[in-house]
């Protein structure tokens, strides 16, 4: 079935190609008619109609069949250059040719229709499956923090007098962590929706990437626990024209990802450099790395590396990919001898006005 092409040409193009093909083949055959004879020409025409039927709609195919039948009659069946046919054999040939061409076209068209139906059904099933995965992931990711919040609050309301101050503090801290997680999940969903709805409009402004990186590091300070985040800024860097909000989110998700999926105490390193026409951000860690056969999948929506601990959303990296792609950039991941690194490349304008001589 895969033999049938999926490409769909616009209607006028189909007619044009059909007509051109008929003329091209008839001219060629006409020149060679002496050597091949008019019955072979009919076969060649039939093959052409069959091929057109594989990709085109029914009407252009019928047109091709009719046109080629007429041309065959006019130019190839004696007496030449008339629509008149002398021998009964040729009349029979002419109608058989026309019938085979039309039936051929009809059958191919029917098969293609069936195939489209089957594909639609398959796609529907696939999207139902995806939808189910999505709902499962979502309810898990949303309900876990909600459960924590409800249970902690419940405990505090009902057993107030039994709880020591320390336990109360601990419960409050649990509620805090859960709310932050819940909020992040909703943010991710909104971002995903922005990406998929196609309403993402980029706002390019001159940005100081050094500053942006430090902002992200500062924002992640309360979440980084025992991780250390290293970034050595350079004074020589130009300003880059990017959408600051999106690139900040990209960097935030990459570093946050590293915080979640690497053991406490490991180091996360951010590097930034500017090349001819693009800037490059590298986020690397010295954690366990990513299983080789899963490297290709980590940017997929809701994909979680096997055995990874809970707390992630399965959306962070797909948002990274989406936002980077919106800049016409690329993001790749590779394993290091120890850990792994994400490389973001973003084509951008740069400005080297680093020192303004002021008045």
């Amino acid at each position: 079935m895969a033999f049938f092409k999926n490409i769909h040409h616009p209607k006028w193009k189909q007619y044009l190609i059909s007509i051109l093909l008929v003329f091209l083949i008839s001219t060629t055959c006409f020149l060679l008619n002496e050597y091949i004879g008019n019955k072979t020409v009919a076969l060649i025409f039939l093959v052409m109609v069959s091929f057109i039927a594989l990709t085109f709609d029914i009407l252009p195919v019928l047109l091709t069949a009719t046109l080629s039948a007429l041309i065959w009659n006019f130019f190839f069946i004696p007496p030449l250059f008339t629509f008149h046919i002398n021998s009964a054999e040729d009349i029979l040939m002419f109608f058989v040719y026309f019938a085979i061409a039309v039936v051929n076209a009809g059958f191919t068209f029917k098969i293609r229709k069936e195939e489209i139906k089957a594909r639609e059904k398959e796609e529907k099933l696939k999207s139902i499956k995806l939808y189910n995965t999505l709902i499962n992931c979502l309810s898990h990711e949303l309900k876990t923090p909600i459960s924590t919040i409800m249970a902690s609050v419940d405990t505090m309301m009902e057993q107030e007098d039994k709880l020591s101050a320390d336990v109360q503090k601990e419960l409050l801290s649990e509620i805090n962590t859960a709310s932050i997680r819940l909020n992040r999940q909703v943010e991710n969903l909104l971002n995903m929706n922005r990406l998929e709805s196609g309403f993402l409009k980029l706002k390019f402004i001159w940005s100081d990437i050094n500053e942006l990186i430090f902002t992200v590091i500062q924002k992640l300070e309360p979440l980084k626990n025992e991780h250390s985040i290293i970034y050595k800024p350079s004074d020589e860097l130009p300003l880059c024209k990017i959408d600051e909000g999106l690139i900040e989110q990209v960097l935030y998700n990459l570093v946050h990802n590293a915080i979640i999926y690497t053991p406490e105490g490991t180091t996360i390193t951010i590097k930034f450099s500017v090349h001819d026409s693009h800037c490059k951000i590298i986020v690397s860690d010295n954690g366990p790395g990513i299983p080789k056969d899963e490297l290709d999948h980590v940017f997929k929506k809701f994909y979680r590396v096997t055995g990874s601990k809970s707390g992630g959303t399965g959306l962070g990296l797909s948002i990274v990919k989406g936002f980077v792609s919106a800049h016409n950039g690329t993001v790749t991941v590779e394993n290091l001898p120890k850990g792994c690194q994400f490389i973001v490349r973003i084509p951008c304008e740069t400005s080297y006005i680093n020192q303004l001589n002021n008045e």
Partner: protein
Amino acid sequence: MNKYEVLIIDDEPQIGKLLRIILENNDFKVTLATSGKEGILLAANHSPDLIILDLGLPDISGHSVLKELRFWFTKSIIILSVQNSEEDIIQALDNGASDYLVKPFKTGELLARIRSSIRRNNHEDNQKVITCRELQIDFIARTIKKNGEVLKLTTTEYGLMALFFKNEGKVLTHQHILHEIWGVGFQNETQYLRVYIAQLRKKIEDNPDHPIYIVTESRVGYRFI
């Protein structure tokens, strides 16, 4: 001392209740409006010291309420909204909002913004000297001192600092700063601003990479605290 009165315009009863608890607990007097029209009416009747305004209201949009209030209400209006797109934030600031806080918010941050907004309400416009922790500006001598020592600043750098001091605690959009310092036509030349802010931070901050005076408000602008 009289209590400062805060008017909350928010249609979510939970948020209203929560804000009332937080604010009353911190010695503010609270009035609550649950629609834009009620909010405008209460603002006129009570003349509060500060208004906390939600953008998503049931009757008229918060942006319209803000515009209407700004015809006559001169004190601070803080926007508290779930809308976190920079278009919304910048539009609100352009329409005269004193500050902007996105839900979910941290109580400490909200209180800090409220206090600094109220402080700015009572600012005398003709103060000659303003001090902010280790920094001090003298508008007559046109100097800035850090720990008593005069900093070497260029004219533009001084202009930026003066603008920041006059708007202490308030977020200033890139466009606003560019317009104030460089004038009409420079609103989109953010690269100048970036360079000057980086230079200024080297002069006034202890650690320019982790600024505590000129703080970045991502996508929107800068805040001097």
